[in-house]
C-alpha cells in the first residue's frame, strides 16, 4: 500500500477553518463593568430552546484592600416570569474577598413551552458600597424538542428508523442476489498487491 501522508493542503485548509472561527462571536451575553473597586462580569447564553435550561454566571474581582459585600439580583421579565421555571434564589449577597475572584451562578432557569417564542428582557442588578448598576440581558427562545424528554426521546426516533428500515428492505435486495441475506458471503481472497509487511517472516 502506498505510504499515507498528511498532505499539506488539507492541513492548511483545516488551519484556515480554525482561524476563521473567531470571526464569528459565540451567541452569548458577555458584559463587564465595575462597582468601585469590584469588577463584575456576566456570562450567559442569549438563546435557548424551549424546555431547556440556561445558566447565568457572575464573576466578581475585588481589586480593593477590603472584603466587599456585593448584592446580585436576577430580574425576570415583567409579567412574563411564569414563562420560566426557576426554583433557586433570585438575589444573593456575595462576599468578594480582596484580591480574589469569586463566581456565582443562577442555574437551571428553564424556558417553558406552550408560550409564543420571543425575546425576553431579563436584567441583573449589582449593588456595592452605595453604587448600583443594572445589566440588561436579553434571551431569545427558539422551538424546543417536538417530543417530551424521557423515553419518547428514544421511542420516536426508534419508530422512525424502524419504519425506514422497510425502505432499505425494498431497495437493497434489488441490488443483491436472491436470498443473499441468508447465505454467508464468499471468503475474501488474498490480494496480489498486498503490502510487504504482511507476509514477512520474523528473522
Amino acid at each position, binding site marked *: *500500500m502506498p*505510504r*499515507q501522508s*498528511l498532505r499539506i493542503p*488539507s492541513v492548511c485548509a*483545516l488551519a484556515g477553518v*480554525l482561524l476563521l*472561527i*473567531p470571526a464569528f462571536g*459565540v*451567541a*452569548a451575553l458577555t458584559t463587564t463593568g465595575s462597582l468601585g473597586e469590584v469588577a463584575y*462580569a456576566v*456570562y*450567559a*447564553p*442569549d*438563546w*435557548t*430552546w424551549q424546555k431547556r435550561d440556561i445558566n447565568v*454566571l457572575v*464573576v466578581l474581582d475585588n481589586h480593593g484592600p477590603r472584603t466587599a459585600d456585593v448584592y446580585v439580583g436576577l430580574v425576570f421579565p415583567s409579567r412574563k416570569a411564569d414563562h420560566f421555571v426557576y426554583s433557586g434564589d433570585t438575589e444573593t449577597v456575595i462576599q468578594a474577598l480582596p484580591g480574589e475572584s469569586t*463566581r456565582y*451562578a443562577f*442555574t437551571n432557569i428553564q424556558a417553558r413551552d406552550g408560550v409564543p417564542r420571543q425575546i425576553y428582557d431579563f436584567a441583573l442588578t449589582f449593588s456595592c458600597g452605595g453604587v448600583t448598576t443594572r445589566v440588561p440581558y436579553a434571551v431569545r427562545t*427558539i422551538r*424546543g424538542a*417536538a*417530543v417530551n424528554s424521557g*423515553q419518547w426521546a*428514544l421511542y420516536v*426516533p*426508534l419508530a*422512525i*428508523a*424502524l419504519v*425506514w*428500515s422497510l*425502505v*432499505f*428492505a425494498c*431497495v*437493497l*435486495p434489488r*441490488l*443483491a442476489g436472491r436470498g*443473499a*441475506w441468508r447465505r*454467508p*458471503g*464468499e*471468503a*475474501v481472497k*488474498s*490480494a496480489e498487491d*498486498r503490502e510487504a*509487511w504482511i*507476509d*514477512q517472516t*520474523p528473522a
Partner: protein
Amino acid sequence: MDRPDTGLEQGAPRPWSLRPARLGLRTVMLLGTGSVIASFYIGTGDISIGTNMGAQFGYRLWWTYFVLGIAGWALIDMSVRYFLQFGKTPMSMFKDVHPVFTLYMFLAVIVCATFGSYNQWAACAMVVTGYVPDVSIELGGALASLCALLFLLTGAYKRLERVFVVGLIALLLCLFGSALMIGIDWGEAARGLVPNRPGKGWRPLFMSNAGSMINAWLILIYPYTMIERRWFSDRLQGKVNILHRARIDYGWGILAAGVVALPLMAAASAVARPFGILPRSYMDLSILLEPLAGRWSTYLFLGGLFLAAWTAGVGWWLCGCYALLDIFNLPIKLNSRPMRAALVLFFIPSTVMLLLRINPVYQMLLFSAFLAVVFPVIGLVMLWRITRPDMGYFRWSPRTAQGAVIIAADVFAILLSVYIGWVQIGALFIRR
C-alpha cells in the same frame, strides 16, 4: 473415528505460538484505520458522557474508559480473528447461527446508524447555531449531513482515512487546548485511573459509557476496513502479522476515546461542578468556559465538538452501510453503487429527524443505554463462533500465555456486556 475439524493442518503450529514480524516505526505510526475507529468512539456520546462525568464527579470516573476499553478491544479482536481465520465478513457469523440473527442485525444496524448519525448532525447544528443564531437547527444539521454525504459519495477509502487522521489530531488539539487554558489537575486525573465508586449517580453514567465504548455492532467494523485495505493473507504467518498490526491500530482508536475524555472532564469539572450544573447543552458549557479560560477556550471547545460530531456522523453512516452491504453479500467497497444507495438512504431519515430537535446531550445518554441493551446478543453470537474448534490457529487455547490472556479478555468482555445489557433492560423497559 473422524478427526474433529480444528481448522489446522496436521503438523501446523500450535495456537498462538507464532511470533509476528517486527513492525517498523513508520508502519506503527500510520494510524489511519485507528483514527476511523477513534471517530466512532469520540462523538457526541463520548462528549456528553465525559462532560456529565466531569460535572458530577470530576476526574473520578476516568477509569471507566479504560476498563470498558479492554472489553471493546477484546470484542473487536474476536471479529478480526474470525475474519483472518475464514476470510469471511462479520455478518457471516450471524448467518451461520440462524437467519433470525440476520434480521436482528439488519434492524439493529439501521436503527443504530440512523439514530447515531442524527445525534451527530444535531450536535453540529448546535455549534453552527451558536456562532450564527439565524441559522436554524434543521438547516445547520442538514448542511453538516449534506457535507458528509458529498464527502462519502465522492470519496475513496484512502482519502477518508487521511481526513480522519487530520480530524482526530485537530480535535485532540482543540479539546486539549481548551482544557489546558482552564488547567488540568493531573494529580486528580491520575487518581481517577484507579477504579472507584465516587457516589450516587455514577452507575447510570458507567452504563451509558459502556453503551458508548462497547458500542453495539460498531465493534464489527474493523474487518470491513481490512477488506478496503486488502489486509488479508492465505499464509498463517501473514495472518499473524496482520492481527498484530491491527491490534495496535484499534488499540489506538480505543485509547483515543479515553484520552479525549480527560479534557472534557477537566472542562466540566472546572466550570459546571462548582455550581451543580449538569451539562445538557454544549453551548451553555462552552460559554461557561470563557470566564475561566478566555474566549479562545470556548472557540477551541466548540471546534473540537464540531469535529468530533461530524467525524462520528460519517463513521456511523460508514459502519451502517458496510454492515448492510455485508448482510446482502454486496461488495464491501466505499466507491460502489450499492454503497452510494445505502448512504443516500441513511441521509434522508437522519436529516428528517432534525425536525424533532431532541437535545443531543440528553438523547445520547439514552441512546448509549439502548446500545448496551442491543449488544449482548451480538457478543454472545461472537463468543459462540470464536470458541468453535474450527477456529484453527486462532482458537481458544490456554497452552500459551497469549492464548490464556485472550480467553480472559474475551470472557471479561462478554460477561461485562451481558451484565450491562441485563441491568439496562431493567432500567429502560421494566422499572420506568
